[in-house]
């Protein structure tokens, strides 16, 4: 009986505020709409998309993905450490997440700059319009992610403010950014 209750409690448990999971759902729906439009346009003009896609460096995309996956790992370690009340370790992992996020941002800006220098701008063709649009809207989400990390760090720094729920909510947002990037990476860089 007790086991059944614990299983039921575990099944109901979601990290952070359930409200943030509603946001994850909204964003997943909106991005699904963007991705659907992308796939429809790609199907209509497959040759152009394949030609333009060839100008993207898959290695850069893989690097971005690995950096963001590492940031997801560090934010998960941050949550775990906070749960164990190891707040110094939690802060270290939160700063590490900021570092990984910053590496992604700088690298993304460098990639855009390189593409622009090569003559591939927002209006070059339909593929590059999508490339800049999807990566830029993701970039914007990442900037908001830094605000979320800032809130988590602010909470962790003082015993008076520490809220496990807030830290987990911020981490959930950060994982969403990573999740969206993996899909964008698959669509723009991998799907050939």
């Amino acid at each position, binding site marked *: 009986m007790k086991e059944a209750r614990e299983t039921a409690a575990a099944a109901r448990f979601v990290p952070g505020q359930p409200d943030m999971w509603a946001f994850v759902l909204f964003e997943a729906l909106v991005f699904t709409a963007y991705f659907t439009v992308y796939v429809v346009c790609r199907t209509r003009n497959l040759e152009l998309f394949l030609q333009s896609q060839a100008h993207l460096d898959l290695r850069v995309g893989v690097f971005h993905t690995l950096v963001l996956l590492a940031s997801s790992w560090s934010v998960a370690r941050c949550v775990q450490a906070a749960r164990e009340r190891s707040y110094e370790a939690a802060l270290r992992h939160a700063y590490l997440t900021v570092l990984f996020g910053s590496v992604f941002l700088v690298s993304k800006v460098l990639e855009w700059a390189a593409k622009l220098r090569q003559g591939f701008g927002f209006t070059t063709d339909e593929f590059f319009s999508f490339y800049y649009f999807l990566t830029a809207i993701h970039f914007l*989400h990442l900037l908001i992610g830094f605000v979320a990390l800032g809130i988590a760090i602010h909470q962790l720094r003082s015993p008076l403010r520490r809220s496990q729920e807030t830290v987990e909510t911020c981490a959930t947002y950060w994982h969403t950014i990573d999740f969206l990037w993996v899909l964008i990476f698959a669509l723009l860089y991998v799907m050939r």
Partner: protein
Amino acid sequence: MNDAKSKRELWIGWWTLVVFYNLYGLLFFVVTRTQPPPSPSAEPAAIVQWFADRHDGLIYGYAVVFIVGGATAIMNATLAWTMRRMSVSRAFAYSYLVIYALATLPGMLLMGIACTVGAMRPDRDPALIAWLYDFAFLSFEGTMGVFLIGSLVWMAAVLLDKNGVFPRWFGYLNLCNALTEVVVAPAWIFQGGVFAWDGAIAWWVNMGVFVTYTAVFLTLIRNLILREDFGTGPLPELPTR
């Protein structure tokens, strides 16, 4: 003033929101037929024909918009009242009121004026009519920044509030709505495709989010009025029937 009378005033505000959102939908989609937006790449001759096809609808439809447009003050005041009921600073409600008073211009009036002028002066040079067409739709679609900041103000107020006026997920929905307002910006650059002012991403996805967002906040404000106890602290739960 007793609570019943005060609630009656809030219900007037809420019904104004419901009636006018529906009325504007009817006027923009059915009477003037300016939504969904037409192609941004139409030639001047086609644009002149577009105005001719909608001549009466544009004139009478926007006449109604100009007559009842002041109702946006009641609508915005009702939205701002939700922030006044929160535990946050009054600055949120005041900022929201100012932003949405400004938003009335690109969100409604500029387009109405440009389309009415185009409909009432069909004998003008087609190049000038085409200019009015661009001005109407770019002012409407391309200037969503005011709505972006308005949504962020509401989001911050909901997330900081301690009175439980709205659920926190509504704060996050505001963020979602704000992010889709950014997506409209490429409408200034593209004259065709999914990012143009009539495009699948710049218009259709955005409109889907906006309609959902509007339906959600109308429902939440209704529940808020039902819960209102005219105090200053946390609100009671929604009464059960």
